[in-house]
């Protein structure tokens, strides 16, 4: 197993290098640079001074040199300094990470909480109106963009309950109750589409398992339907569902960008947007690289979990 994990990690390296090159190149393709943004519209700055400022940040060097300088830093654990705030990039990310993690895991929690029972019901009541209902609701949830749903939720709760999303973020340790109030709507908005995917996955996986012979055997033994479903069928049906949960968790890290903007949450999604607006290259690169690494690690974790859940799976 250790060898497998090591191999997977090594395989991830070219992927991450590829991503870093693409991100580096793309940030430089956006017209305007960080110096333009720093000067804003009204700095009284001559062309020469502007070039001096560029040189100060190393923008006057050829792109591949700039890239190598940055990559060298990253490898040695130095992700650079934010050009916007002069703070180290890892500090900026670490500062925002708790918000994004909480949002990601709460969304996933709500999604799973709703999706698995719904998926099971849809599978058991296959062919019924209930199944049709579950299927169409999940299709709708899947087709609704999360920012749109988020805006709808804000409008709905403020119109009907006079309940406005809180204006400023409060951390869980400061005030758990307010914190949960802040997170509930964005988590639902973000979790809806994922819950739809998981519902459909649970349903089809469950249907397949229910047709297996060992389920028939269990029933023949005279076990109650409840025990058949929960003890025998569900365990096996959940294995593919876990893959989906894993992959979607990685996706969520990317999906928070828009939702954090809509709900005014200071997470890494907002950090990314602000950095792009301000052409804060080191932070953009840092955030994207961070999300890429997280994605790779989560997928690895899912694969490892597989082996644990299904002893037939062996990685050698």
């Amino acid at each position: 197993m250790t060898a497998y994990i090591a191999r997977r990690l090594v395989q991830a390296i070219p992927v991450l290098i590829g991503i870093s090159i693409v991100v580096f190149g793309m940030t430089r393709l956006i017209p305007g640079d960080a110096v333009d943004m720093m000067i804003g519209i009204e700095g009284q700055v001559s062309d020469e001074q502007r070039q001096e400022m560029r040189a100060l940040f190393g923008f006057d060097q050829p792109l591949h040199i700039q890239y190598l300088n940055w990559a060298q830093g990253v490898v040695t654990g130095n992700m650079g300094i934010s050009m916007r705030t002069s703070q180290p990039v890892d500090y900026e990310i670490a500062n925002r990470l708790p918000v994004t993690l909480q949002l990601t895991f709460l969304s996933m929690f709500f999604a799973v909480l709703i999706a698995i029972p719904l998926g099971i019901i849809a599978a058991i009541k296959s062919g019924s109106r209930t199944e049709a209902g579950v299927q169409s609701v999940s299709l709708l949830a899947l087709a609704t963009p999360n920012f749109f749903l988020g805006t709808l939720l804000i409008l709905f709760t403020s119109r009907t309950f006079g309940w406005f999303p809180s204006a400023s973020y409060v951390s869980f340790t400061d005030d758990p109750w307010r914190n949960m109030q802040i997170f509930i709507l964005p988590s639902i908005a973000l979790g809806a589409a994922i819950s739809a995917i998981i519902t459909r996955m649970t349903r089809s996986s469950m249907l397949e398992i229910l047709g297996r012979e060992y389920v028939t055997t269990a029933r023949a033994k005279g076990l109650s339907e409840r025990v058949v479903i929960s003890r025998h069928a569900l365990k096996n049906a959940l294995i593919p569902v876990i893959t989906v949960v894993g992959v979607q968790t990685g996706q969520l890290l990317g999906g928070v960008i828009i939702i954090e903007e809509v709900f005014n949450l200071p997470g890494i999604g907002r950090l990314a947007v602000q950095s792009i607006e301000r052409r804060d290259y080191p932070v953009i690169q840092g955030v994207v690289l961070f999300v890429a690494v997280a994605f790779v690690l989560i997928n690895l974790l899912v694969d490892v979990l597989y082996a644990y859940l299904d002893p037939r799976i062996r990685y050698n």
Partner: protein
Amino acid sequence: MTFDDLDTRLSKTLSVGRFGKTTRRGFLKLVGAGTGTVAFSGLLAACGDEPDVDDDDDEEEPAAPADDSDDVADEPVDDADDAADHEDDDEVADGEPQYGGTIRVGFDTSPEGFDPHAATNFASLNIFEHVYDTMFEFDGDLELVNSLCESFEVVDEVTYQFEIREDVLFHDGKELTAEDVKYSFERMIDPDNAFPRVEWFGRLESIEIDGDYTCTFVLEEPFAPFINFMGIQNSAIVDQNMVEEHGDLMSVESANGTGPFRLVSYQADQEARLEAFEDHWREGLPYLDEIQWMIQSDESSRVAAIRADEADIVRVFDVQNAQVLEEEFTVHQESITSRALSILNCRREPLDDPRVRQAIAYAIDRQGFIDAAMFGEAEPVGFLPLADPYAVSVDEFDTYTQDIDRAMELLEEAGYEDGFDLHLVASPQYAMDVSNAEVLQSQLQQINVNVEIEQLEWGTLLNAMREDRDWDILNIILTFQGDPDGYTYQYFHSDSGENHPGISEPELDELLEQGRQTVDEDERMEIYEEIQKRLSDEWVPKLPLFSYYQNFPAQDRVHGWWMVPTISYRSLRDVWLED
């Protein structure tokens, strides 16, 4: 507020010209200011129905609110509908200032570090301006008044001698001396720092210190704007020890100024906290214990915050939001120095012909822009902010009266009577830039000019403005620059790196240089009068459209708030909260 009220108020404001709402408070401040005033234009008679404004230049004692009743009689233009105006209502009810409390301010953008010499954005400036003081500051009339500077003397055209206050302490207890002043200015112009506004003080040849409280600035050549630039918040007096200890002044830990509040904490994109500095030199100030500066980037969340009483004062940009909130809250409507304008690209055909640019200037109707983009809540403006002492009244500009026939004549002369296409760029970052583009598009149809609008992302627009230059018209908002030179030289001198219109007129260059070198105030006034008139009617590199207000809904317990038109929140030092 109904639209009728609005009309009355607007016409009122227009009739008092540049001495509109905010400026009257400035006068009051001047009355109390006494020794603090550097330049004093004798217009006091017109002042005064805003009694709560504590004069922030009087350091001896917290100013008691003046009695309103006397002043109203002197103020013929304003007594009619005072009662309808929330702001005045609130202020008439003011009592003795009370100490203590935390004010919760809802602001829209995140600061980008707190180094006053490096930062160029208002989000940083509006925080560090409470932490640091400057030698001078601008009052509500955009007149320069003393702050850390006790008095100064112009020895000759290039030599200025400053006496600084002797009772000033930094937040860490260190005493302010001339050494700190010298260090701060030298830091600003140090080429190694590459600070963006080195232009302001780059002509400093030397700073000499005589004793603890006197320093003499010697310039390489006469440079009149110099003294006004010392009043901008970026020209802060900082502590050398902090720079040496921390490398720069970006972090909270490195913030050590002489201002009324200490910066205590900042959580990225969430909030900054500032606490009152007990030993601040303006005696009795500040009243507040604490400022909780909340970053709420979404306008709707700021509106929600004031509604839910999670904020005491917030900034709203959307005029309609302000109008809705006016039914529940006191909405402070503040005249500021921000101006919306269109830059004309003088490098490209057909706008390289001044007659074509003049034709465009004659073809537009500014009230149309004000009504469409700002629901009437703005005023026509020239090349300088309305309140600037150097500003020429817009009535004196010929092109400010719409004249389609004249426009057509000019186009005929230039050979463009059949019309042409123009490519306009604007960024949706500022909604009014885009709505102005649409108004311009429809107004220019009258002279057969077809405007195509392209919306660009903000950073892309800045790049297009400076480097790419693939546009005929570019819409943008400009704000405070401290000195008439700041509004003109950098944008219109043919050698300037920020000459976005690309205009090159030898006569204009010469006038701009004279403006810089002329120290005599009356002579300078004449030079800038000529510059403004000829920019508006002859050269037309830009179309200044309007100067807008900014709206600040506040809870009723907030007293003493006003916004300095330089877009400064420094009146928070005079603000007090009613229990």
